[in-house]
């Protein structure tokens, strides 16, 4: 007899996949450690967890471009930095009580994080629209190079803009504010970052599973198929690129808050490389991969870096190992190959 789809499905507990278990474990550890550290008054570790969380958000953004859309951007520091500078500049004008733009209409600074986040994401989106519109006409190595070139342009622009500190960067003297909570508290700020990370992952997952996500995924797997199915690849990829940039831009805004400082280093190509490391180390296309990647990166930098200047050598070896032996990154090693339907 043929099985019909109208038959009621048996009710059962959904079986958790290995990857889901890893995801839950990783997020639980990331949440538990700062809670514990805060309870014993060690804000240093809370801030370290915030750093991991923020880097993870930046990675989730880039992972959407690379893992879902196949767009290997080597210029995501541009968006990370733009997010950061938006925060710095808004805070600067708010602190000095000056106007950012006087004519034709007045735009003042603000110290409200919610507004800053939205503005930062919008500006990143516009920047990505322009950068993507040009870069996405190329492919492969050319795309990598042209995104790098755009990020470098913005980097040099920031260096040569004396109003906002030029090479020295810009200090944010008072952390910006959130309604109802005390963002000055390390733990509160961590929790805010953590919630935003969950939000970024959730949005990324939803989008990947939508019709848009199906089209974007096909752009990665086989662009010929996408076009043959009657869907123009360019607008799909451009939209994916913009969304990716906005998520990374939000991370940049949080990074500026955490450090109380923005500088051109946020825009440097090293930063682009680091964000890419989070993604590759964790596992390209794995939803929670960037969390693992960012955590490993920060822990290596903090603990091995304290012990030897050559921690990057170790990082390099770890990357080499992942690229050569575990194509799915650390997530691939623990949870096996990614599953498709």
């Amino acid at each position, binding site marked *: 007899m043929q099985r019909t789809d109208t038959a009621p499905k048996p009710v059962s507990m959904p079986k958790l996949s290995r990857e889901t278990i890893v995801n839950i474990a990783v997020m639980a550890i990331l949440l538990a450690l700062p809670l514990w550290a805060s309870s014993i008054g060690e804000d240093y570790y809370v801030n370290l967890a915030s750093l991991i969380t923020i880097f993870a958000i930046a990675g989730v953004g880039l992972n959407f471009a690379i893992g879902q859309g196949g767009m290997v951007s080597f210029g995501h520091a541009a968006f990370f930095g733009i997010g950061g500078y938006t925060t710095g500049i808004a805070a600067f004008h708010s602190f000095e009580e000056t106007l950012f733009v006087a004519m034709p209409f007045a735009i003042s600074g603000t110290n409200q994080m919610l507004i800053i986040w939205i503005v930062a994401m919008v500006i990143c989106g516009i920047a990505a629209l322009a950068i993507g519109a040009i870069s996405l006409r190329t492919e492969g190595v050319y795309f990598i190079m042209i995104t790098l070139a755009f990020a470098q342009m913005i980097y040099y622009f920031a260096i040569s803009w004396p109003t906002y500190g030029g090479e020295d960067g810009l200090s944010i003297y008072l952390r910006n504010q959130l309604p109802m909570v005390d963002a000055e508290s390390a733990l509160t700020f961590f929790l805010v970052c953590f919630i935003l990370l969950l939000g970024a992952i959730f949005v990324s997952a*939803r989008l990947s599973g939508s019709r848009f*996500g*199906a089209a974007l995924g096909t752009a990665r797997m086989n662009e*010929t198929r*996408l*076009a*043959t*199915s009657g869907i123009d690849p360019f607008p799909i990829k451009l939209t994916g690129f913009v969304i990716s940039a906005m998520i990374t831009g939000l991370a940049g805004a949080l990074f500026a808050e955490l450090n109380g400082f923005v500088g051109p280093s946020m825009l440097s190509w090293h930063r682009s490389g680091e964000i890419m490391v989070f993604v590759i180390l964790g596992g390209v296309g794995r939803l929670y991969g960037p969390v693992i990647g960012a955590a490993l990166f920060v822990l290596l930098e903090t603990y091995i870096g304290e012990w030897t200047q050559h921690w990057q050598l170790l990082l390099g070896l770890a990357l080499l190992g992942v690229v050569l032996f575990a194509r799915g990154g650390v997530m691939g090693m623990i949870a096996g190959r990614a599953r*498709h*339907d």
Partner: protein
Amino acid sequence: MTKPVLEVKGLHKSFGALQATKNVSLDLKPNEIHALIGPNGAGKSTLIGQIAGWITPDSGSIYLDGEDVTSETVASRSRKGLGRSFQVSSLAMEVSARRNVMLSVQASQGSSFRFWKQTKSDEELRETARNWLRKVGLSGREDIAVSELSHGERRQVEVACALALAPKALLLDEPMAGLGPTGSIQLTEFLEEIRPEIPILLIEHDMDAVFRLADRITVLVGGAAILSGSVDEIRASALVREAYLGEEA
């Protein structure tokens, strides 16, 4: 006389010194299977590539349903009703056959700019895709990754993808290749079945299938259409025997 669904006028294409398409004109009428035959390297795939939009012709025009589509993108031509299968199938290999067809179904329904609803639980989308796969004879195989399907099955998936777009014309580049005898017979029957709805421009080396299916045959040699006629005319032509069919005819 019935209006052609697809019309190609005076197409030229050179790759450097090589003239791959030399002043080719042909058309496809409703209810017909028009076969395109010719030796390897004759320029058949290049011609299909220009009709589908992958290759830009040096000169000449392409009309679909009376509309000039020469400067349209591949995607736009697909949406306007040009379905095709490739000589070497081109699918998203990592995902299931159903996923590939679902993409065509979603394109045929309009927007891919829908960001929230999950396709996994979109029963209508999944069911429509399954029906197309059943139609091409892939019932029960819909959830297998394309990379694990045989070459013949992949071809069938491609045809299902094309049909899901409700095409006005189909361009099939050697659909029988790699199918094996039973597969060929099944596909031949299937093409017979859809011919009344969708005319087909068929490139095929399997002469049994061509002679059985075709209403008209055009012979392409060295980029030029040297002859066009009914099956009997082509069979009888000394020119074709010499240029293409060789001794076996």
